[in-house]
């Protein structure tokens, strides 16, 4: 029997998902005899032409990380879809847009202005912004087109499975790889490598009085390491986020930021967390309620830090 062919790809993301795979360390070495890696940007030198020359469905499983933010990302998504039997959206970005999707709070123009013109460190006297084509004496240079709206992988191609996390935790990656290699495949569309209950289910912090009378940002306080952070006024996305990560952020006395995405019965993670949080505001009068609501700085960045592209509204209005 030949070893299954596995590919990894890195689209619009920080690369942390690939590092998370690398982090498997010696376990990766054990795996190397069982699998045949045919594409892996972070570790091995393959070219797009290698990929293009493969017959369709040649790859058994592609773990695709990163959101779709430019034409190159989309092209590769389509290419991998064609060449792979199974396409897995790997990590928060591919699954729900991730941090790159926060770009959806701005337009392409605003982003270009900010990055190429307005930041104090920019030295760009000619006000040049990226163009997809540029003529040089040697010929025409092209770069991919930057999209106005960041999308999830499944908003451009058909996806078989999803593995959430920013990045997915090592133990869960092992499990996912094991499941897929075992051949006992879960139903299409399944979320792999995560729990079906919220982070609160596995969080060890003590929950007593569900009331939030004041909100503080993490730098403003040193939380009591035993008590639920929400009750201490720190917005923790735990209640509205899938568990499975082992509540590692909370072990570091840091709130959950929601990278494992919404729970199975929930269609919009941010809306649910917003609702849960506001419901337990310890305020009765309109004035007190307004004060508390106003103290949530950057609601989109808080409630949709990883999930904006997969939310109901997906982006801001221009």
């Amino acid at each position, binding site marked *: 029997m030949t070893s299954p062919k596995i590919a990894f790809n890195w689209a619009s993301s920080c690369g942390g998902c690939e590092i998370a795979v690398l982090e498997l360390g010696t376990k990766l070495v054990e795996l190397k005899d069982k699998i045949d890696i045919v594409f892996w940007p972070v570790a091995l030198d393959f070219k797009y032409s290698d990929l293009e020359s493969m017959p369709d469905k040649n790859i058994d499983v592609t773990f695709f990380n990163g959101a779709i933010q430019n034409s190159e990302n989309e092209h590769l998504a389509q290419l991998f879809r064609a060449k792979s039997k199974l396409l897995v959206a790997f990590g928060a970005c591919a699954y729900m847009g991730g941090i790159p999707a926060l770009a959806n709070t701005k337009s392409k123009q605003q982003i270009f202005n900010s990055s190429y013109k307005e930041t104090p460190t920019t030295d760009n006297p000619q006000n040049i912004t990226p163009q997809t084509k540029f003529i040089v004496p040697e010929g025409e240079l092209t770069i991919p087109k930057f999209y106005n709206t960041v999308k999830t992988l499944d908003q451009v191609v058909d996806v078989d499975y999803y593995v959430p996390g920013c990045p997915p935790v090592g133990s869960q990656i092992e499990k996912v790889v094991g499941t897929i290699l075992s051949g006992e495949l879960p139903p299409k569309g399944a979320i792999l490598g995560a729990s079906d*209950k*919220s982070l609160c*289910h596995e969080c060890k912090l003590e929950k007593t009085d*569900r009331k939030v009378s004041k909100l503080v940002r993490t730098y403003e306080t040193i939380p009591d390491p035993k008590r639920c952070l929400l009750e201490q006024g720190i917005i923790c996305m735990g209640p509205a986020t899938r568990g499975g990560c082992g509540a590692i952020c909370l072990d570091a006395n840091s709130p959950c930021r929601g990278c494992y995405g919404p*729970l199975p*019965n*929930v269609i919009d993670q941010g809306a*649910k967390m917003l*609702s849960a949080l506001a419901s337990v505001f310890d305020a009765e009068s309109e004035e007190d309620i307004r004060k508390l609501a106003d103290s949530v700085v950057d609601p989109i960045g808080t409630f949709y830090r990883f999930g904006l592209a997969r939310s109901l509204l997906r982006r801001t209005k221009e």
Partner: protein
Amino acid sequence: MPEKIGVYVCHCGTNIARTVDCKSVAEYASHLPNVAVARDYQYMCSDPGQEMIKKDIHELGLNRVVVASCSPLMHESTFRRAVSSAGVNPFLFQMANIREQCSWITENRELATNRAKAIIAGAVTRVSFNEPLEIKKVPVNPDVLIVGGGITGIEAGLQIADSGRKVWLVEKEPSIGGYMARFDKTFPTLDCAACILTPKMVSVGQHENIELLTYSDVIDFSGYVGNFTAKIRKRPRYVDEEKCNGCGQCEQKCPLSVPSEFDCNLGKRKAIYRPFPQAVPGTPVIDREHCLYFTKGACRVCEKFCPRGAIDFEQKERIVEVPVGTAIIATGFDVFDASRVKEYGYGRLPNVITSLEFERLTHASGPTAGKILLRNGKPPETVAIIHCVGSRDHNYNEYCSRVCCMYSLKTAHLVHEKTDAKVYEFYIDMRAFGKGYEEFYKRLLEEDVTFVRGRVAEVSEVAQNPSEKGKLVVVAEDTLLGIVRRIPVDMVILSLGLEPRKDALEVAHTFSISRSRDGFFLEKHPKLAPVSTAADGIFVAGTCQGPKDIPDSVAQGGAAAANVLSLIDRKEVELEPSIAIIDENVCSGCKICLGLCPYHAITFDEEKSVAVLTAALCKGCGVCVAACPSGAIEQQNFTNSQLLAEVEAVSA
């Protein structure tokens, strides 16, 4: 089974048809997904209209029905009955309101017709997601629990018992009677409190339908309307109530005297005692904290002298479990702790006394046999009465205690009647709102009481001139004269406000009722449901709901009794069908929902680490459903799928 939906568009004569093109609406509906038949008809609510639906159900095998006509508040129950009689669960019916909120609001036929189509599209989409539900009915246990044996509880208890129902009356103290038993006269009629209260207390003690549990408290109360279980702890009196005939020998012979709480510690009682002579029941209790046998191990004099052998030092606490269908909470109030207002010197200055202490001083069977005396035994020559102590004050309680103005007038009258003292009353506003109250105020104005309108700043013992030497100086701004006055007096009476009882929070938890901001129990509606609570079958009456005088307390006791009797005579109560359901396989135990339920229907199963809902307590508001971040809570007939489908359909 595939959905087969029937849609019926009603003309309502011309009420709908005038602005909505019903024919084209029905035609539009017939093309909506899963619609098997769509018809329009003159009057859907008429017999032929209803027959049409039933016939289609039978002949076409419809399993869901939408009627587009008037408001569901009008005819939802009519059509539910109709589909139900044809064998379709009434909750598989959906009403589309195209009259009140469509045809009647505009003259623009085109817009109204379009709107009607959208509304029907919403209803048709939603009905596919409707699920069959049963309305549950539960019988009402006719036994009633009343907590608190003050005048309110007594009134409610007698009303209910007289109708032939069984009442369990629970009182914390050794005797019923409450605060009223400690008062001398009552305003504005000045009739003696004991004369009107004692007969009622005796009736309670003798009533065949009243089970009186004194020296007891309710420690747990569970269940739901019609079917509660009260767990009552009966503390040991160390005197057998069956054997004791109340002869009082034991009290006489007991060698130990201690301050009497009933007399505000101004007088003495024995270690075995009845708080006051007319106590009901007449059985005394042994005060374990002081009794020489319990503290020193020897004495048992009472046992020796008891002619009936009723003393039982071995008596143990008893827990009684009582099933009841309804409950009335009438736990009353506490008086404000005057020592909190340091500037008035209560507790430090001996002749500063409280209004309650005054009641005992002026009471004929009180510690001074009704004489109003200073601590040195002399009668006062000048007396100041200070209103609003602890009330209408940002530092203590912001509310008005309602009774103080009137009882302060009564106090002034009694001081006048019994001594020659000059009386000053310091008030903020004179609130004389009840029947005969303003007249009483007028009468006091004529009795030569000096009324000073102003809040007292302090009661000082520091004399600034010879006339103040040895006196209590009441310093207040007289807001009518615009000057600060220093009035030297012999005695200061502080008119204490009413407060929620110290254990009100505990009681609220036990009975799952809410408290308002001031700490008193919260009624369901301040005007229209003043003795109901958010918890079905549990009522509040008297001063535990807010400060009240005796007439109002008695009226509320009666009102609560009427509410209870009406529930009992209904024999059965229907439970809300649109309740929330928690899926324990989905619940993550985040506890967000726990504090949100106004009916305390959600509790936490620590073992499984999931939230659990008591269906009978849920009233279907859906607050928890919207809040649940796991999507583990659904509301029957308002499920996420139903609402999302309807939203999507009407938004498109």
